[in-house]
């Protein structure tokens, strides 16, 4: 801050190469530490001097220069834009073509940080022709280089379908799919995240990813000892499952649902979230698939999630997933109700502290509208607020006229008494339901 940048500037043009390299290293470390210093470095116009003679320099200088660019680009999109504007991308591409793995790693790390911020910068990186070189980098034997190249591809393809298509056209999917089997945990994290960013945009891209034969290998990633590998593997499965019923069918057929359920059971916290959403998406497509989820013992872990987790968004996701499972037919709703999760859902709904997206009214309504399992509905009758009560009474009014045993049970458990206590406006739906129920019983009992 005390003019250090101005002092270092002439050293960058020094005769002795090691002085140049050390000066660049110093600048890089300064920029890495603080945003203001990075801005100072950019404002002092050092970048053109840094990258001016880059093709003729030796590999250490190239590494250092890439480090400086990376350190500046990571702070904000404006700084990354400044780097792009002074023509650094071509120099970085030249570094990517170098033979030394360290130089390639530095260059691809810099590309990754630039492409991370927004789609325009990613497009600039792609336009500079970096993607085929990155795909070549992935095939190199050094693990660190593979990691960085995979994370850069992931950052490029996450913004838009066209960018993802560009990455796919360079033939990245086959190599990424091969690297899923690699034992290194950090590499697996990056590879799975890259594949999920590619697959999330459209059905065609997801199908391309699936054709690379990742199932059932991906399921072994769900059993890895590293938490983030599990999370990224579950994210990949979720991005594939959400597009069409056929893809979800594929996942169910290869036993993916069981693996995801085990994964949910064994993790804690945000790591569970993609797995929960996967189950929700699979169950949402059709009733056969949701039956498959139920048969694979999917409901108990979801209930456990709902009860145990403290974070709002995880609870909301679990409630949503249960709603998708239970909304198809009476059978499904019965399975959900048997797991004794309706009172929990009602509590969450009624609780004034929970946020708006947690009050998944649609979930409760969907399940209740199909639920004909009366013993589960009984406890809800006593506590529910009025708009939920409407649905519960509706269900009772559908079932009671036909089933005599249920009628007897209804009276003995005090349900009929509760129904009488409800005051409804005459002519409303609620009143009609109450009348239907009252008509099932002889007059003396009603009074």
């Amino acid at each position: 801050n005390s003019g250090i940048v101005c002092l270092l500037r002439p050293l960058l043009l020094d005769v002795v190469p090691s002085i140049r390299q050390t000066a660049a290293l110093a600048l890089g470390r300064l920029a890495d530490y603080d945003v203001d210093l990075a801005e100072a470095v950019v404002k002092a116009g050092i970048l053109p001097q840094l990258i001016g003679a880059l093709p003729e320099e030796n590999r250490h200088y190239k590494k250092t220069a890439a480090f400086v660019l990376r350190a500046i680009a990571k702070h904000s999109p404006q700084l990354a834009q400044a780097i792009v504007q002074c023509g650094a991308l071509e120099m970085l591409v030249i570094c990517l073509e170098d033979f030394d793995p360290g130089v390639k790693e530095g260059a691809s790390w810099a590309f990754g940080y630039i492409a991370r911020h927004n789609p325009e910068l990613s497009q600039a990186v792609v336009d500079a022709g970096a993607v085929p070189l990155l795909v070549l980098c992935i095939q190199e034997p050094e693990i660190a280089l593979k990691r960085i190249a995979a994370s850069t591809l992931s950052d490029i393809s996450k913004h838009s379908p066209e960018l993802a298509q560009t990455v796919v056209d360079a033939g990245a999917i086959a190599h990424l799919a091969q690297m899923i089997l690699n034992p290194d945990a950090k590499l697996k994290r990056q590879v799975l995240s890259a594949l999920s960013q590619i697959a999330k945009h459209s059905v065609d891209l997801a199908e391309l990813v699936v054709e690379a034969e990742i199932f059932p290998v991906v399921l072994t990633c769900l059993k890895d000892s590293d938490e983030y590998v599990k999370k990224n593997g579950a994210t990949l499965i979720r991005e594939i499952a959400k597009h069409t019923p056929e893809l979800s069918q594929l996942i169910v057929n290869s036993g993916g649902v069981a693996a995801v359920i085990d994964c949910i059971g064994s993790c804690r916290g945000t790591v569970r979230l993609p797995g929960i959403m996967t189950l929700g998406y699979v169950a949402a497509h059709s009733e056969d698939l949701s039956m498959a989820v139920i048969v694979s013992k999917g409901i108990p872990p979801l209930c456990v999630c709902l009860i145990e987790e403290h974070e709002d968004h995880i609870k909301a996701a679990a409630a949503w997933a249960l709603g998708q499972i239970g909304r198809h037919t009476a059978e499904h709703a019965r399975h959900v109700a048997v797991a004794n999760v309706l009172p929990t859902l009602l509590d969450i709904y009624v609780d004034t502290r929970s946020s708006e997206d947690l009050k998944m009214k649609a979930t409760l309504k969907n399940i209740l509208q199909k639920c004909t399992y009366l013993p589960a509905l009984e406890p809800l009758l006593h506590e529910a607020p009025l708009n939920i009560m409407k649905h519960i009474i509706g269900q009772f009014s559908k079932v009671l006229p036909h089933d005599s045993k249920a009628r007897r049970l209804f009276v003995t458990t005090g349900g009929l008494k509760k129904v009488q206590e409800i005051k409804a406006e005459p002519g409303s739906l609620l009143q009609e339901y109450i009348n239907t129920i009252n008509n099932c019983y002889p007059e003396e009992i009603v009074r």
Partner: protein
Amino acid sequence: YFYVFRAIDEDRVIKYKAAVKIQRWFRACVVRAYLRRLSKMATLIQKWWRGYLRRKHFREIVEKAYFIKKLNFYNQMAVRIQKTWRGYYVRKNIHNFYALKKYLNAISVNNELVRSELQEYAEMKENEDKMKDLEKKEKEKKYQARKMHYLLSTEQIPGIYNSPFRKSPDPMELLLRKSKPLTHRKQQVKNPFAYQLYDWPTCKKPPAFVTELSLLPTDRQKPQGPFRDPAEVMWQRYKPLEPTLRVAESSNSPPAKARKEWRNPIHDNEFLPFSSYHKNDEKYEPLLRRSGKYGQEAYGTKYFREVCPEKWIADKDFETFFPSIAIFEKFGKTYSNTGQIV
């Protein structure tokens, strides 16, 4: 007469009127009968005509009614067929209950399989990790034993791990007996351009090119001064090429990038002019096959056949029947041994 003629006239008028009346009446009757006959005829004609018309249309009406009846019948039968077909089709293809049940059973079986395989995989990984840990510990212990080989017990003095009060020596003692003592590591000459991948990205260590100069070998003759100024040397060493006009490129020639090919060499190991500079890099690794506890076996260099007199059946070594190969006889005898005449 007048009265008789008036009476006859009046009678005549009366009889005339009566005749007219009778005739009128009779004509009326005739006309009526005629009209009646006419109407009867008309009715007859109309009757026959209408019957004829109706009979003509009757066939058509009957056919139509028959057709409608047939159609209704067919419709009902068709409804019956469609009803059974639709039930069959839906139950077989769209919502096949038994196939669904089978499918769900297959899914649960497959899930069990997948779960067990994943469980096995997880256990295998855990085992591998444990094995790696164990091996690391073993290696540590062995290294420690090699370093502390002097703690081995001798004939006179029992070592630390071989206390006389114990029934049998400590496992460490056994390890010490087995281990070979550690040699001094030769002083490593660190190449100033040595390639360090894992430290580089985070730049935690200072780069080698700045702090480490190659350590000069200790038995070298010290160079005699006076020495030139290092900046001067560097300047001279890195002086850029200034070609004369004769070899200078024209301003129209392709730029410096075209010369990149020889400027960026394949590798960055610097060229060392004499092979003796490389001799510290190459460490001789002896063959494993011949190494024993105390050095290399002489088999393979000094002699090529083992001779065990105890195993001879007759008291002689075996004789070769074939003539020996001439070249092999000259082994070690072709050139003089450092000046001595063989």
